[in-house]
């Protein structure tokens, strides 16, 4: 019981409690970040920062080149329809 209290409340272990808790929280956040984003790298982060939907890139990588071309053609046709509609 005493052990679990100590684990849950690191404040007890450190006289400068607040800083210690914040350090633990920051470490946990970093750890969680690494766990939830195994793909995270400089290049991927750069794409996210640029505003690119990386989940769409990942989905596209899982497709065959033929499927990518078909999807591109659908997107191009849609863009063309929208462009024409603007001039109606």
């Amino acid at each position, binding site marked *: 019981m005493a052990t679990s209290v100590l684990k849950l409340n690191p404040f007890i272990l450190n006289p400068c409690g607040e800083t210690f808790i914040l350090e633990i929280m920051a470490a946990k956040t970093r750890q969680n970040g690494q766990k939830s984003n195994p793909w995270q790298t400089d290049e991927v982060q750069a794409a996210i920062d640029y505003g690119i939907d990386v989940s769409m890139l990942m989905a596209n990588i899982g497709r065959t080149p*033929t499927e990518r071309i078909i999807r591109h053609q659908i997107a191009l046709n849609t863009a063309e329809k929208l462009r024409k509609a603007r001039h109606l």
Partner: protein
Amino acid sequence: MKAGVDFVIVGGFAGVVQGCTYVTQDIDLCCDFTPSNLLAMQKAISDLHPVHQMTAGRKKLELTETTCRQLKNLHLDTDIGQLDCLNFIDGLGDYQKVKRASELIEVEGMQLRVLGLDSLIEAKKAMNRPRDKEAIVQLEAIKRLKSQKN
């Protein structure tokens, strides 16, 4: 390809084949600019009614051996969109160098030559155009995601 035309898909469309999510309206090809290859290409796309983009009155594509020897690039409009044929790619070089930097990719049962990811990034960087920035960012992310997937 079936007509025996030597070309490599480059530019934005090569990016699409490699996995980019943007939309591009034209197709850029790096071609062998020998008269025999250009004449074979002319024959292969004749039913698409190709015309020169950059001539007054949109002149019909009518290549001869003599005119082929004078060409460096061909910018065409066809029934299915713009087709740009280039004999040199910035950052990579002439057709033979581009061909060496390409990979064979199967599309609907056809083996097409498409510029590889690294070379595509290199070429886009060499162009140094603001509009290529997004393509470079996407291509570099794709390269990393693919390497992690493998």
